[in-house]
């Protein structure tokens, strides 16, 4: 019997049936090849039309191709229909069919501007292997940014390791972390290696999984707050990236910061790819797209 991979989150795709891409003037795409996940977003005249989100494999070009093909699946579109493709994320330089590479910081800021509106001034992107705090203007242009160091502490990958350690499906981590009688102290380190050994010790001491998760989510939130405070927080505040979906971290972050993040009906994990698609559309308008 195959061992369950608790870290494995559900890959997904979607396209908006109400939009006819053939009726649009500009069909463009953004592809965000991150360290843990890859997303492809297709826009039609600045409207979000289709997207996919899946695990990043060991090969960036393949990840980009698979993500794009899956986003286009069932739409009747092919990659050849795209007027421009922008690559972003860690693998952005290895997307052979991208017309331009733009950093994920710029793309997340642009995508958040779309998702949350032009009032966003501080953006927290909690990705698979790093966290970024970004100041942006009303057009979604980056004014300043800070990243965590190269350690994976406080990132999506760390959360995946914890899900596996505690045998809790990753999507349930946030909710379970609130099933505690009182909030425990955070684990003393968010370093994945040290936190894992500390969590093992807590389990041995008889802590329930929910309490260990609460302690880890709190530590992760605290670490991110430290990063945010280094750059300073200007309202409005929004969160993108996979960890934005983890209420266990987000609510504790909100509690510690004393600032409520904006909410959105969009999937915050696709912000980077969406920003890329919006940049691609802008490039076409400037006559600099693939079909220019």
């Amino acid at each position, binding site marked *: 019997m195959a061992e369950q991979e608790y870290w494995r989150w559900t890959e997904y795709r979607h396209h908006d049936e109400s939009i006819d891409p053939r009726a649009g003037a500009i069909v463009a795409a953004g592809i965000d090849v991150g360290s843990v996940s890859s997303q492809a977003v297709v826009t039609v005249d600045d409207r979000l039309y289709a997207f996919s989100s899946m695990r990043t494999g060991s090969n960036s070009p393949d990840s980009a191709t698979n993500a794009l093909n899956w986003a286009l699946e069932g739409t009747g579109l092919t990659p050849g229909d795209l007027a421009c493709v922008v690559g972003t994320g*860690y693998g952005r330089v290895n997307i052979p069919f991208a*017309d*331009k590479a*733009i*950093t994920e*910081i*710029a793309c997340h800021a642009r995508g958040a501007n779309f998702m949350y509106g032009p009032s966003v001034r501080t953006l927290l992107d909690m990705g698979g292997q*790093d966290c970024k705090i970004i100041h942006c203007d009303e057009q979604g242009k*980056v*004014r*300043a*940014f*800070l*990243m965590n*160091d*190269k350690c994976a502490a406080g990132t999506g990958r760390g959360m995946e390791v914890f899900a596996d350690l505690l045998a809790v499906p990753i999507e349930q981590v946030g909710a379970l972390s609130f099933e505690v009688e009182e909030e425990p102290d955070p684990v003393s380190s968010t370093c994945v290696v040290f936190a894992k050994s500390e969590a093992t010790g807590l389990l041995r001491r008889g802590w329930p999984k929910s309490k260990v998760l609460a302690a880890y989510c709190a530590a992760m939130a605290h670490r991110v707050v430290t990063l945010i405070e*280094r750059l300073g927080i200007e309202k409005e505040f929004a969160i993108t990236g996979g960890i934005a979906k983890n209420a266990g971290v987000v609510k504790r972050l909100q509690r510690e910061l004393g600032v409520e993040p904006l909410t959105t009906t969009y999937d915050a994990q696709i912000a980077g790819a969406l920003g890329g698609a919006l940049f691609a559309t802008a*490039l076409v308008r*400037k006559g*600099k797209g693939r079909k220019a």
Partner: protein
Amino acid sequence: MANVAYPTEPLKCWARAKELRQRYYEDYAKAHDTGGLRWAGGAWSFDAIPMGLGPDVYPLTSEPYAASIAFNREFSKRCLEATEAKGYARDLCSYMRNYWGSLLLNEYAFGGPFPRPDFIWQDHICCSHAKWYQVVRDLEDDIPYYCIDVAVGPYEEARDRQHRVQYIVDQMHQGIEFLERATGRTYDDARLIEAVKNDCRATSAWAEVSALNKTIPAPLDEKTMYALYVLGTLHKASRDVADFYEELRDEVRDRVARGIAAVPNEICRVITDTQPPWGFLKIFRYMEKYGCVSVGSLYTFGLIGAWEDKPNGTWGPRTTPMAAGTPMETRDQALHILADWTLSRPEWQHFYSPHLKSQLMLRIAKEWQLQGVMLHYNRGCEGLSLGIAENRLALIDAGLPVMVFEGNMGDDSEFDEDATKNRIDSFMESLGIKRPGEEL
């Protein structure tokens, strides 16, 4: 932003710089072959003073030596592992760990076994410098060791300055007695005086070279400056180095007059801070693809350069005692000048307060016409990284865009090349700078 194309050409004195550096390390290693002496100490030490022992006394300054090790990543790895295996912590100064490793492995970075010094001549500019040669003495028994305490406060605090200088001069006098005892040689004051004059010439000329980089386009880029300033860290009191810096200054003046650029596509000027990650200097070339040139840093300008306020309010090379007509005919006069001159060097100031360093950086930002600052959060150097986060805040408060990147000057395991390039990409984007051909 428009593409530009300034004329550029290689430095004519580049080969001479390489030759001087190579000869320095060879002279040290071979000193005993001709009856000469070897001494070891920090690059901050008063290297003019041992020169009074004769013309055949050769130093090995520890930080640039360790930087040379760090540049050779394979050797550096072995050195760091040897030091760690001996039980020394990984968060200590990485220069120190590389140096100790070279000693423990008994391998000299320039070939052959590690050449044991005959004496140690050090000063205590930071905590690591205070311990560095204590450990060397633990590993190599009974090398005579003299150290000068220089922790007398910032130079700009004029109150009691003469007493502060005197405190150091008194130690220098005792140091000369130590040198005579340790080597059995008679001290020659005329050689000391010449060495102090060389020091003043060299460090003033280096400041002028750095000041010439205020020009747009910059005649030098910082990666090139690293290879030049290092001579001052090796032996600033030697005639060769003083002569070389004056030759370099003349060449850079000529480059400025003819509009010769270090980076032909210069469109953006930044400075860095602290020692760079020596194994990854290629990040400077990466920046240049954007037309971004690092025109220097407080570190490259002020570790060796001697500066002063000029009558027009700008920062420029300090007037040498010879040009100012300050008498330098006795040992005591020479030592007073050497102490005062050295204490005024900018890189000595921020050990006392990050605010002093912030002021200096803001001054550079204004006079060198910068678009931004890239701060190296250098885990390898506690001394120069001290207060760097406060410097960042001060620069931001003044409206300067700041990028930080983490690394280590001498331990490449703490540097992430791709992540740093990623930050550079984002920083350039936030400054509105595109790479040529990518102005989409």
